[in-house]
């Protein structure tokens, strides 16, 4: 057990470094750099060269990478050029903001999607299951940008909820944050819930076709108990397995929702950094994303082991 966990942690560290290094390489390959992004197309040669020298961007990639690596092992991931702050300062703030959204969205999606998936999986025909399936399919066929825009639009129209942002000016209390959270959480959670519902539905309908379940039913156990007690645990297998991936993609996929709802999270931070070619910040965000993914997959593997003991060992 200890060996398993320590192996996973080792792999996670390797992943973090691999991802951040790859980001630095890709940033070098991508056209333009921070200087061209800030100075624009009308800049003078000397200006560009001077800025590059000031920021240390005129060194060879090898030198740049070596310096960054030397700092990284001491947990100094460089300074953001846009904000002129250490990357390790900027990321925890935004990661926390996104984390709140992601966790809440995950919980909401699980609470909605799993039970609905059980319902549609065990009784495929019928008005209610068909309606649920229909809603899931609608959510899955809408692009995330459109879903967030639609929700923001509805919020604006109804007037109950604030439009965009994390807090109101002069506000900032818990109630204020919660009110601002409704739209972005909904935008994240609804497509996720649809995905869980579909996966759970499939897994459920497979599981109840298994001999032991039918046997239980045949012995006279009421249907609802058969479903919720005996079949469910095994049917959680596919959802548990993708849980980790969902956590990882939530962080990187949240930028669409965060941009539209003006939520100051890490998705928005990374998008801004990518556009401005703020290489150290991008590497830092990618590293943060990989940490979350590693945690998420560890979580999901643990869940998998618990749900289906057959898969361990």
């Amino acid at each position, binding site marked *: 057990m200890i060996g398993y966990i320590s192996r996973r942690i080792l792999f996670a560290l390797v992943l973090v470094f691999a991802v951040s290094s790859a980001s630095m390489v890709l940033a070098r390959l*991508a*056209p*333009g*750099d921070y200087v*061209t*992004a*800030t*100075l*624009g*197309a*009308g*800049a*003078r*040669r000397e*200006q560009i060269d001077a800025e590059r020298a*000031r920021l240390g961007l005129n060194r060879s990639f090898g030198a740049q990478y070596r310096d960054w690596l030397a700092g990284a092992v001491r947990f100094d991931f460089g300074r953001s050029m846009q*904000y*002129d*702050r250490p990357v390790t300062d*900027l990321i925890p*703030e*935004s990661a*926390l903001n996104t*984390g*709140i959204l992601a*966790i*809440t969205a*995950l*919980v909401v999606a699980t609470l909605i999607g799993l039970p609905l998936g059980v319902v549609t999986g065990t009784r495929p025909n019928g008005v209610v299951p068909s309606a649920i399936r229909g809603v899931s399919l609608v959510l899955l066929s809408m692009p995330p940008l459109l879903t967030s*825009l639609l929700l*923001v*639009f509805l919020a*604006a129209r109804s*007037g109950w909820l*604030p*439009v*965009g*942002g*994390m*807090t*109101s*000016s*002069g506000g*900032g*209390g*818990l109630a204020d*944050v919660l009110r601002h*959270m409704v739209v972005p959480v909904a935008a994240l959670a609804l497509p996720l819930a649809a995905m869980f519902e579909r996966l759970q539905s499939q897994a459920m309908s497979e599981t109840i076709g298994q001999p032991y379940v039918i046997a239980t039913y045949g012995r006279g156990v009421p249907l609802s108990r058969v479903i*919720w*007690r*005996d079949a*469910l*645990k095994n049917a959680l297998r596919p959802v548990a397995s993708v849980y980790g991936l969902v956590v990882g993609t939530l962080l990187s996929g949240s930028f669409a929702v965060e*941009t*539209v*709802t*003006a939520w*100051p999270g890490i998705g*928005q931070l990374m998008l801004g950094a990518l*556009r401005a070619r703020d290489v150290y910040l991008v590497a830092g965000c990618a590293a943060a994303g990989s940490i979350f993914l590693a945690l998420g997959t560890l979580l999901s593997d643990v869940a998998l082991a618990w749900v289906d003991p057959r898969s361990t060992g």
Partner: protein
Amino acid sequence: MGQLLTRQLRSIRFVVAALSLALAGCRAAPSSNKGSNARELLVSVRTEPRNFTRLGAREEATDLVALLLHAGLVRINRTTDEVEPWLAESWSVSADERQFTIKLRPNLQFSDGHALTADDVVFSFEASYAVNDTMKVGGKPLAVKAVDEATVIVTFPQPFAPGMRLLDNLVILPRHKLESALKNGTLAKAWGVSTPPSDLVGAGPFVLASYQPGQRLVFDRNPRYWRRDARGEVLPYLDRLTLDVIPDENTQLLRMQSGETDATGSALPAESYASLKQGATAGKIRLYDLGAGLYPDMLWFNLKPGAFAGDPRASWIQRDELRQAISLAVDRKTFLDTVFLGAGVPMFGPVSPANKRWHWAGTPETPHDPERARQLLASIGITPSNPARFTIVTMKGRPSFERAVTVIRDELKKIGVTVDTAALEGNALIQEILVVRKYDAAYFNFSLSDTDPAMSPDFWTSAGSEHIWNPEQKTPAAPWEARIDELYRQQVGAVQDHERKRLFNEIQKIFVEHQPIVYFAAPRVFVASSMRVGNAAPSVVPPRLLWSPDTLTIAAPTEK
């Protein structure tokens, strides 16, 4: 077994929910104590400012913040386009028109109580020269000397017609705060966005109260602001001004309609006109139609000599006739209708008709004449048997660019010219235009810093970096380029207004003849504000609604 499962699930759910609530709680800051009848203006901006000195590259949010925090010696009134005394009370000019003796107002203070004297003016010039060239004339700095506490003598290296107008670009920075940065050479990085608000000192109408990165900047009124209105009342009228960072245009619009935003920092595109009109008719929004804008989109070709070496198209792709033919072939009415929904004026020369002072009224209006276009093309060897094909690069994500390029492509197809379009990501486009320089043609937008052409030598002269079709030429590449350089040099030094006008008209004439940039239309500018905003006199020049933040008023919240 199943019961165990559901119980475990329930407890897990509970833990996670509690965790997220706790996390949300620690994001929540205590509410600031603000009186319920405080006069607060809410503004949405798309990006965050880069620094608080405005010494680096110009950028919309940074310029807006500088307007709030700082003041200059003079200010250009955006409605009259005239220079007004600001921190400077008065000035006199020497006989040779090169030396200005400027008297500061008495008892000026920075926001921290420190006196603002001639030393700070001298320091501000030094700071500017340490970082960029905005305050240079002909590449040479101005000589600045403090005569006494309240008098400065500024000497231009050569006669400069705009004169004091140049000083609108200079913000007066506090010597006592930034001198050490200047000495250390770290001035370019000074007062970045992580500076604690209490360190930021300026002579502007507001001070920065708080900055939540990624979210908002809150500005409170500067109690030591120098200006008073005509009745002697202290300015600014506003108690507080909040900039909310809202990156998405749609969300900005929705906030405007729901009343959570009073004004936006950027202009709104023609497509949003309809939504705003609905709001205006319903009495929720005030919509301003400011007429044609100043800086339209531009189509230009890569005129760098040798850029097409080895390319069979080299014989025609850099020729004037090609661009003249394009100007003839594209129907400007169709262009306006498709790109700007008819809201705009056609353009045929480099200066927008909105720039009333400098637009050459005699600009010939190129007719829509595809037949003549074909003849011109034939004269440089483009015929149905030898057709022309080139690529226009533009920026992805700007609907007006993408639509314009589509119209150009469709119109040119009718005269037998095939156009491919490549919409590149923002920075990739800049890289292509600025560094790689292997593109055929580009469609993009540049805003110049001022309506007065003498303030934009980088654009007009061949050695300039913004001379976008062939920047930073060592010697003028064509006789007409040399001619423009000469005329420009003359008009910068000419002091007589009508002489300058004549010279600049001449420049426009040459421009229209050779069309290094083809202009099609200047769109109308729309700005919106909530009904609560008063005393706004928006202008087409950015920041449009907020150029005079100290005279803006807002109705109290209870009067909504």
